[in-house]
C-alpha cells in the first residue's frame, strides 16, 4: 500500500481522501474570443492527463472586444463535467451573482494560485474532475450590442499519483 502523505501546507484540508499522493497548484482556462451579443457558445477544457483536478475556485475577465477595456459581465454560465455526467448547477447562473468583479484588469495568467484572495469565487467544498476529463462550459451573452472577449479560470490543485477509488 502506498502510504498517504498529508496534504501540503497550502493544500485545502478538506481535500477528499483517496485523491492523489502529491498536490500542486493547477489551473484550467477557457476562453471565448469575440462572443457576440446574444450568442451562446460552448467551450471544452480538459483536466490534465497526469493529475485529477481538484477545482476550488473560479475567476474571470470580460473585455470589450473592440476596445480591450474591461466590460460589465452580462453573461449566464453553466458547467458540466462530461465524464461524471454531473452539472455544477441546476440552471445557468448569472456571472455577477457568483463571480466577484471587477477583475477585468487582472489577467488570468498573473492570477495567484493559492490562498483566499479577493476577486475569486471560492467553492465551499471542491469538485474533483478526473484526469483527462472534459469540462463543458456554456456562456450565454445577455449583451444587446457589445461583443466581448471572455476568459474563465478554474483554479485548484492537481492531485498527482494515486487514483481515486
Amino acid at each position, binding site marked *: 500500500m502506498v502510504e498517504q502523505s498529508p496534504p501540503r501546507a497550502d493544500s485545502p484540508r478538506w481535500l477528499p481522501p483517496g485523491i492523489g499522493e502529491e498536490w500542486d497548484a493547477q489551473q484550467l482556462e477557457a476562453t471565448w474570443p469575440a462572443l457576440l451579443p446574444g450568442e451562446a457558445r460552448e467551450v471544452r477544457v480538459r483536466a490534465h492527463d497526469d493529475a485529477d483536478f481538484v477545482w476550488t475556485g473560479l475567476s474571470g475577465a470580460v473585455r470589450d472586444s473592440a476596445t480591450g477595456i474591461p466590460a460589465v459581465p452580462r453573461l449566464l454560465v453553466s458547467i458540466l463535467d462530461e465524464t461524471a455526467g*454531473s452539472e455544477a*448547477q441546476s*440552471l445557468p*447562473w448569472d456571472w455577477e*451573482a*457568483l463571480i466577484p468583479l471587477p477583475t477585468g484588469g487582472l489577467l488570468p495568467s498573473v492570477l495567484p494560485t493559492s490562498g483566499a484572495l479577493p476577486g475569486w469565487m471560492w467553492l*465551499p*467544498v471542491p469538485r474533483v474532475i478526473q484526469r483527462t476529463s472534459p469540462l463543458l462550459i456554456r456562456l450565454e451573452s445577455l449583451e444587446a450590442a457589445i461583443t466581448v472577449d471572455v476568459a474563465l479560470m478554474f483554479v485548484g490543485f492537481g492531485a498527482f499519483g494515486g487514483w481515486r477509488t
Partner: protein
Amino acid sequence: VPTDTTRAAQSRQTLIPGLYLDFLPRALRDRAREFYVYSTNFLPLLSGATATQSISMQGSSHFLLTAINGTVRTDAAPPVLQASPAVLIQLQDTGSGRRMADQPLDWMNMVGRGIQPGLLPWPWLIVPGGQVAVQATNLDGADRQIRVSLLGIQIYSYAWDL
C-alpha cells in the same frame, strides 16, 4: 505498527474535517460532498408583483445551503444590474414548512453577489428531494429580471472511502 485500517481511519480524520463539517449531523459527516448551485429566475417580475418559484432538490443527496446570491436587472436589452434592488425575498423549505425569516426581507439584507457573497451565519440543511420555495416581491416602479442562486454542498448518500 499502523494497519491499513488504522491508516485509513487516520487519513479520514486528517482529510475530511474541514469547512462546514461542524454544521452537519454526525450521520452525514463522512459522506461524499461536492459544490453545487441551485437557481431560479423571475424573468421578469412585474412591478408591484409577488411571485414564488419552487426549486426541487436532487433526490440522491442532502443539500447544505451556505450562501444566497443573486442579481436584479432591468427588463431591457441589455439588462442593467441594479445596485440597490427594491425587492423583498423569503425562502421556505416546503417539506418541513420552516421559513428562513419571520417576514420577507429586503434584498439588500439577505442576498449577496459574487463580489460579496450572502453567506449564511448558519447553513440550511435540505433533505433529499426537498423543495425550497423562493418568494420575491418587486417593490420597484419597473419590471425586473431577478435571478437567485443557492450555493452550497451536495452531500451524497455514499461515504467517502479509501
